């Protein structure tokens, strides 16, 4: 494959930017959370690319740990969102303004 490291890092950086756009733009907490997962995924792609082009295994091991931690984080975060919905009957961030009233 003649595609260089730069191309992979460019794809990862653009994925990260798209994830940040989602966090800024969306109001649904679940979609914001999915955008956070997208940013984690972009970092995973960058780490695997660095690991492959550097010839060491450490980046792959980091991605292994990141996937594990992300799975645990998704379970806890979704439980918190469900608890929030049970109390406030909404998950839209513009209606979750109890501190400003």
């Amino acid at each position, binding site marked *: 494959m003649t595609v260089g490291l730069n191309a992979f890092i460019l794809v990862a950086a653009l994925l990260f930017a798209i994830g940040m*756009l989602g966090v800024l733009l969306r109001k649904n907490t*679940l979609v914001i959370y999915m955008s956070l997962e997208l940013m984690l995924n972009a970092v995973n792609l960058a780490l695997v690319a660095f690991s492959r082009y550097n010839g060491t295994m450490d980046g792959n091991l980091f991605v292994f740990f990141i996937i594990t931690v992300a799975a645990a984080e998704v379970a806890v975060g979704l439980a918190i969102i469900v608890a929030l919905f049970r109390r406030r009957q909404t998950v839209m961030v513009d209606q979750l303004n109890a501190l400003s009233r």
Partner: protein
Amino acid sequence: MLDTLFYFFAAITLISALLMVLSPNAVNAAICMIVSFVNTAALFVLLEAYFLAILQVLVYAGAVMVLFLFIIMLLDVDKDGSSYLKEKMSLAGSIAGFALLVILIFSAFVGGQYLPETALQAVGENPTGEGPGIPFTTSAKSFGYSLFTKYMLPFQVTGFLLLAAMIGVIVVSKKQGDFK
């Protein structure tokens, strides 16, 4: 051939990620997210990280996104469509921030194209255990080798973190007053 595959998978990854961000329906967003994750797994295959590609499909596209879809459908949050496009200020601010980030990335790459391009090295099949670091191999065996030598402490901390997350989820999702 592999170059064409890279451009194909990278394009689908980026386009479906963008569709995920822009689709007003949360279920459609989750489906686009699954497409993006599967294509990232394809990019991992191109990088010869086969174990991580399988892990990505199983854990991210499988478990995590099924959990997301389940919660989206359980909460039924699509009834009042999120009308983020109607608020001009937040839309303008978000797009301006996104454009600034993209310009930053592209200017960094325009500056970086004068650097020497990194060559792709040949990789071995099995971990050898020689030399200073752990060399890149395509086998899942080197994951086990690394996890039980260099990354023993993080491995055990991760196991403890999973236990803590499991207990935390049970505590958070119980109804209030169940602990009396």
